[in-house]
């Protein structure tokens, strides 16, 4: 896939470093979001602060020396709800419990799902305007949107998923048209029902990406892909971004058995732990990954979005990761 990157005009170093998408929102932005929800500040003021936070995270990523950047998702709440709010056909449900005393509202498909205009393009453009390095376009995938929504309109999960895929294809086209050359499609729910992968999840991903000239990454969390590997390689994307730091060894065995045929972003930093890994731990994980994939296939990033960590933890973890990559690069 190095050729595809070059053809897109992307000259990335070996073992490109990136992040999965979200960064923690600074305290002033959390407060502003609360005030906005309570009707106490207007959308323009909120937007100013979202831009300020985005600028800060772009600077932080540049300073860390990451190769492929993200906008940090300062303007998003829940990853499914955000897109549901910006597509036609969606409503929002009453409260549903997820565990303990935690409740959330789910998107509800109430009518024909349609793309009514760019959702993330303005933010992508804003972030890309701040740096020479490539910024990824980021969307939530059709299967995950379907699985995380109630469906009152379409006769089946398949119909709902494919309708979402058609709508999200428009978003992907708009991102590419604006200049995004790397587009990530998050599918944490992709293995919710493994038999649906061949039935329609692959088809949905094809619908999203088909005919769009970009390097596509899909992000899939831990506890997900071991049920659908190696079939999952049929998803028409260039790079699989996998949460692997807590199952590194198992995966190496799995990939020995069924070689990984595409590019892979190894999640090598645990986002669920407060502990900042030291450089050597991460370095050892990279070397273990290199036992089963070629250096030109491998990208390095954290397991998942960092929004649940503090800014200090996030930066500490990323710094260790970038240093580990540098040291491995020198030895290759």
């Amino acid at each position, binding site marked *: 896939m190095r050729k595809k990157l070059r053809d897109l005009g992307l000259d990335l170093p070996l073992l490109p470093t990136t992040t999965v998408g979200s960064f923690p929102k600074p305290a002033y932005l959390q407060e502003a979001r609360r005030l906005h929800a309570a009707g106490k500040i207007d959308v323009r003021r909120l937007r100013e602060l979202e831009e300020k936070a985005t600028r800060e995270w772009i600077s932080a990523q540049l300073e860390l020396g990451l190769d492929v950047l993200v906008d940090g998702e300062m303007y998003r709440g829940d990853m499914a709800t955000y897109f549901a709010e910006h597509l036609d056909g969606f409503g929002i449900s*009453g*409260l549903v*419990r997820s*565990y*303990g*005393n935690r409740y959330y509202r789910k998107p509800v498909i109430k009518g024909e799902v349609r793309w009514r205009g760019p959702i993330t393009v303005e933010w992508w453009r804003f972030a890309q305007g701040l740096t020479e390095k490539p910024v990824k376009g980021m969307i939530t995938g059709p299967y995950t949107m379907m699985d995380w929504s*109630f*469906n*009152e309109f379409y006769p089946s999960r398949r119909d709902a998923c494919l309708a979402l895929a058609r709508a999200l294809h428009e978003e992907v086209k708009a991102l590419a048209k604006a200049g995004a050359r790397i587009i990530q499609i998050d599918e944490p729910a992709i293995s919710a029902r493994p038999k649906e992968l061949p039935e329609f999840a692959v088809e949905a991903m094809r619908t999203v990406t088909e005919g769009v000239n970009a390097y596509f990454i899909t992000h899939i969390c831990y506890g997900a892909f071991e049920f659908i590997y190696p079939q999952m390689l049929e998803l028409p994307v260039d790079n699989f971004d996998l949460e692997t730091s807590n199952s590194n060894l198992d995966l190496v065995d799995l990939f020995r058995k069924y070689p990984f045929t595409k590019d892979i972003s190894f999640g090598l930093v645990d986002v669920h732990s407060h502990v900042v890994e030291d450089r050597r731990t991460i370095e050892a994980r990279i070397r273990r990954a290199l036992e089963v994939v070629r250096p030109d296939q491998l990208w390095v990033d954290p397991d998942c979005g960092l929004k649940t960590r503090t800014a200090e933890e996030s930066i500490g973890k990323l710094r260790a990761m970038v240093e580990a990559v540098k040291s491995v690069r020198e030895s290759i």
Partner: protein
Amino acid sequence: MELLTASVGSYPKIGDGPEAQRHRQAYSRWESGEITDEEFESIQDQVTLEVIREQVEAGLDVVTDGQIRWYDPVSHIARKLAGCEIDGLLRFFDTNFYFRQPVVVGRIERRESVLRREFEFAAAASPKPVRAVIMGPYTLARLSIDRRGAGTRALVDEFSEVVAAEVRDLVGAGARFIQIDEPAILVHPEDVNILARALEHVASSSRNAEIAVHFYFEDAGKIYPRLLDLPVDCLSFDFTYGENLLDEILDAGCDKNLGLGLIDGRNTRIEEGEKVIEVVRKVVEVFEGRRLYLNPSCGLEYLPRDVAFRKLQNMVRIAERIREEIA
């Protein structure tokens, strides 16, 4: 043949209006130590009465206590057992609901009755019979981490003793409807013999009560014929995972009581009566048991509370139409 409408498990603990937040507020005050265990318990009592009332108001023939006191269907049982510790959160099958995973560190034994008091409280307050619900031994074993390394079979044996003792207690407390949940067997159909053996143990302690086994979150068609041999009175199914199950039932018939989970407990769309009735019509043709249930496919905690209530009301209306037609 009779047709009853029933609940099969959880009911949403809170609603959307400010008056329906009581459980959530009490939970958070209890967590931060502002109220005592007894005060929280009394709120849970009140909410339990409330959700029983809602089910009765919807017109159900058989209700549950709504599992208002349950953190989740697995750890609620496991946390009271010797030999079990409770670990971190894990996704509950393919839902967006999380349960705390038991870790088995020693021999599993019951220290005290887990469900008897909860059942007695609900039964005393309900004008309708209360169905007692417990997670079954196979699923408890499958969802636990086996730190002893003794293997799934040993775990199933020990959990089946626990469940058998619970069933004995519930029968002693007057429960006439007892439901054992076994969703995990649909993920590991090759273990159906292990399930059968475990349930023999459980069923032997259950005279005078109808023992149902409820299967959900996967199509049970592939093992349906084997399930007919289980030593239980009633088989209860989630019909939302495909057509295979219905075909198998029509093919093999059914001489046990049967729970038809045709009301989707995981989607807010309200069922079309005609579609449900069509399935029931077909099943009635081959049905040789005494009692059919119309029920949700699973517990209702995956829905907002107002939708759960509307679904039950709609289910009762559909059941009335079926009764008229059959009579």
